[in-house]
């Protein structure tokens, strides 16, 4: 399997957007900056230990996992992800607008930020 630079860029952007959506930029930057020197070893271990089991979860997941390991075995891609996350962290997170029903009162619910949006209370 070969990936073009555009595909790699697209995958990195998609992951960065996902991390930004959950407000986990700070934790991710903290973690990735620390393990950056081990990216090659980590991706090789992932290929060896995780990749064989991924196709069992579905064809798409298997291929996606393989692509993921291929992208992040290169340190420059981790650096790209870090740069993208730092750029996204500078933006104000956009809260998702829930659909309004007829019985709902007009007052908007208090907006939660970051990972607190995932809490049910």
């Amino acid at each position, binding site marked *: 399997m070969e990936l073009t630079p555009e595909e790699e860029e697209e995958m990195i952007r998609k992951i960065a957007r996902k991390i930004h959506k959950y407000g986990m*930029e*700070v934790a991710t930057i903290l973690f990735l*900056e*620390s393990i950056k020197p081990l990216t090659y070893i980590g991706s090789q271990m992932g290929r060896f230990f995780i990749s064989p089991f991924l196709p069992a979860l579905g064809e798409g997941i298997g291929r996606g996992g393989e692509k993921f390991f291929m992208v992040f075995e290169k340190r420059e891609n981790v650096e790209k992800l870090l740069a993208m996350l730092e750029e996204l*962290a*500078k933006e*104000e997170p956009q809260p998702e607008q829930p659909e309004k029903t007829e019985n709902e009162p007009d007052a908007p619910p208090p907006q939660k930020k970051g990972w607190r949006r995932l809490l049910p209370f």
Partner: protein
Amino acid sequence: MNMPNLNDYLAGAMLANGFVWMWSLILGYFSGFFTNISPILLADASYVIYLLGGITSSYLVCKRAASRHLIVGIKLSIITWIFSLIIMLSLTAEPSIGTAFALLACFVAGDIAGAYLALKSRLKAERVQTETSENT
């Protein structure tokens, strides 16, 4: 790249140990008052103060780092722990291994939290700066 030097690490370690020893002194001076309080509560308060020491020192040292905040925090926690061991072995009559490990755990947790807060405040400052420059 801006990274903390040895002086910064040593200063951070002394600061975190300062919290520990100030708390020990307070416990000693006001022992009459503290005998009325449950020892479990005092032990919990001690852990909170060790954590606070770790968070404060790590936050201040990590503010001097441009990157790799977690590594800086963990390095600082190890240096702080070595300092605390030296102080404990030289000044305490009966040093206990339990206290040493409690200190290590509190320093590591506090220093990781401090590194997180330092990085968060840096990103927030950059965001404010970007917004200000966009508005003007």
